[in-house]
C-alpha cells in the first residue's frame, strides 16, 4: 500500500490525512469528553476534598484588565499555572502556606487561556491579593524601584492611565482566588 502510494497521488494524500487524523482527533476532540473537569467551573464546599471555594466569571472591569494583559504580552514573561511540583506550590505560596496546585476547573472562563510557556518573571497564578494597589502602581511605573535587578519593562502608559490601571489591578487581584487557601487576610482590602 505504501509502495503504491509512491506514484499514486490521490492514494498518497488520502493515507497521509488518515494517518494524521487518528492522533489528531484522539488528542483534541476526545479528551474534553472524557475529562469533565476541563469544562466545569471549580466549586467545593467540602474541606476534606481540598481547598474550598467557587469559581466566578470575570466582571467587566476584570475582563478589561485581562485584555490589557493580553495586549501588552505580559503572558510572554509570566505563566499562570502552579504545577504539581513542590517548588511551584512553595513559590506561589503565602507566608509559609503552600499554594494549592492549579486544576483545570479553575480556568473555564479563560479565553484566551494564559497558561504561558516561559517564566522570565514569577508565576502569577496565585498573585491575587498578594500586593496592594499602591504596590502595583509603583511597580508598573518602574519595577526596579521596588525590586532592584528586575528586568520587567516599565509600563508608564498603564500606571498613568487611571482607567487602564484600575482594570489591570482588578484583574491581577482576581487571579487564583477561586480556591480559598490563605490563612487570613491579604493585602487586597
Amino acid at each position, binding site marked *: 500500500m505504501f509502495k503504491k502510494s509512491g506514484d499514486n497521488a490521490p492514494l498518497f494524500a488520502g493515507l497521509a490525512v488518515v494517518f494524521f487524523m487518528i492522533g489528531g482527533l484522539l488528542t483534541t476532540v476526545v479528551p474534553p469528553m472524557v*475529562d469533565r473537569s476541563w469544562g466545569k467551573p471549580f466549586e467545593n464546599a467540602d474541606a476534606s476534598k481540598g481547598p474550598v471555594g467557587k469559581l466566578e466569571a470575570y466582571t467587566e472591569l476584570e475582563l478589561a484588565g485581562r485584555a490589557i494583559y*493580553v495586549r501588552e504580552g505580559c503572558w510572554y514573561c509570566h505563566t499562570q499555572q502552579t504545577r504539581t511540583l513542590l517548588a511551584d506550590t512553595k513559590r506561589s505560596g503565602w507566608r509559609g502556606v503552600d499554594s494549592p496546585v492549579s486544576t483545570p476547573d479553575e480556568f473555564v472562563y479563560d479565553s*484566551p487561556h494564559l497558561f504561558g510557556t516561559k517564566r522570565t518573571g514569577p508565576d502569577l497564578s496565585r498573585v491575587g491579593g498578594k500586593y496592594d494597589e499602591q504596590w502595583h502602581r509603583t511597580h508598573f511605573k518602574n519595577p526596579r524601584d521596588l525590586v532592584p535587578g528586575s528586568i520587567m519593562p516599565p509600563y508608564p502608559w498603564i500606571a498613568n492611565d487611571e482607567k487602564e490601571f484600575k482594570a489591570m489591578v482588578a484583574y491581577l487581584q482576581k487571579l487564583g482566588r477561586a480556591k480559598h487557601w490563605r490563612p487570613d487576610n491579604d493585602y487586597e482590602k
Partner: protein
Amino acid sequence: MAQEKQTVHSAAATSGAAVHEDTTAKWFLISAVVYFLIVGVVAIIIAAKFVWPEMLGTVAMLSYGRLRPLHVNGMLFGWLLAADMGLTYYLVPRLCGVKLWSEKLGVATALLWNVIILGAVVSLLMGWNQGWEYAELPLPLDVLVVVAWIMFGINVFATVATRKYQQMYVSLWYTMGCILWTAFVYLTGNFATLFTTGVNQANLNWMYVHNAVGLIFTPVGLALAYYFIPKAGNIPLYSHKLSMIGFWSLAFFYVWTGAHHMIHGPISQWLQTISIAFSLMLIMPVWSVVYNLFATMKGHWPRTRDNVPLKFLMSGVVFYLLTCFQGPMHSLRSVNAIVSKTDWIPGHAHMAVLGAFSFFAIAGTLYVIPRMFNVKLHSDALANWSYWLFMVGGIGFFVTLWLGGFWQGWQWNNPSIPFIDTVKALKPIWIVRFFSGIFMLGGIVAFLYNVIATVVDSAGAKPEVQGA
C-alpha cells in the same frame, strides 16, 4: 540496495524539456530574505531588553510584549515559511518535469503573502494580539492566511497532477503532506480555539504550536534537505525505503504530542503520559531521516569543504538531530521539572527553527538564486562568511541558553532562593545571548547582500552557463 536508490537527477536531467519561469519563486524568496533582515533587527532589540530593560521603555509600540510576537511571527511566517514556499515553487515543477501549473496564481499568492506580513507588522505593534502563541494574528489576517494556503495548495497539487514522472520523489511527499496537515493544524490553532476556553483551548493551542513546527516546518524543511543535499552534493539518495519509514512515522506520531507543553500543569495526567510516550517515539522518524542523509554523504564529506549550500545543509541536519533528541528528553517528567519554562526552551526552539530549518532554507536560496537568474552567485567567500557568522552566533546562543536555563531550573527548584536572585544570576547569559545575536545578524546581512547582489549582477552581466 542499488535498484532501491532513487536519484533526484533522473528527474532533473530531463527537466530541460520544461522551461521554468520561476517568477513566483523569485518573488517569495526575495521578500523572505528582506523580512529576515528586518525581523533580525527586532530580534536584537528584544535580546537587548533582557540586559537593558529600560531601553525604549516609554514607547508602548516598542515594548517587549509587542516586539516579541513580531519577532516570532516575522521569523516564522515572513522569513521561513515564505522562503520554504518559494523553494517549493522551484522544486515541485522540476521534480514533476513540467511547468508550474499557474505562475499567475503563484504571483498572486506571493502578493497576498506580503499583504499578510505587512498586516501582521501593523497589528502586532498596535497590540492587536489574540493571546495565543504562534496564533497572535487577528482573525481577518488568519482568514487571508487560509486563502493564501489554498492558493498555494492548488498550485502544487495541480502541478503534481499534471506531472510527467510517474514516481514521486520523497520531497514531493513531504511537500504534499505539509500542505494537507497544515490545513488542519492551522484551522485547529486559529479557529477551533475560538469555540473553547481554558484547558480545552490550551490543548488545541498547543496541538497547533507543536505541529506548526512538527507538521509545517519539519516536512517542508525535510523536503528541502532531501532535494538539495543530493543536488548540491551531486550524490544519489541512500535509501528510498528508509525515507518511506521516516515519512509515514512522522505522519502518524507527530500529532499526538501537543500536551507535552503542559507537563506537570493543569491538564489530565493520562493525556500528559500519552504525549510523553509519543514524544519518545519521535526518535523514529527523526533518526531514519538523519541516517538516510548521513549515509548519502558517506565518502563524500570532503565536498562540504568549498560548497557553502552543502555546508549549511549538513550542519542543519546535525542541528535537526540534536534538537529532536532534546525534544523527547524534555518531555520526560524528571527533565521537564528542571528545564520547562526556563531559558533552555528558547535555546532549543532556536536550534530547530534557526539551526535546522533556516539553514535548509538558506542553503536552498543560495543554490537556486544563481540558477533562476542565470548568473554565478555574487560571492562564494561572502556566503562562507555568512555561514560562519550564523554558526558562531547560533552555537553561542544555543549553548549559553541551555547552560543558563538548566541553572535557572535548578535554582527554581530550590524555593529558598528568592525569584529575583534567579533573574540576576542570568544576566551574564543574556549578555552573551545579545552578542551571539549580533553575529547572527551579521550572517543575515551577508546573506541578504549576497542574494541581492546576485540579482543585480544578473541585470547587468551576460548570462553565464549554469546547470538548471
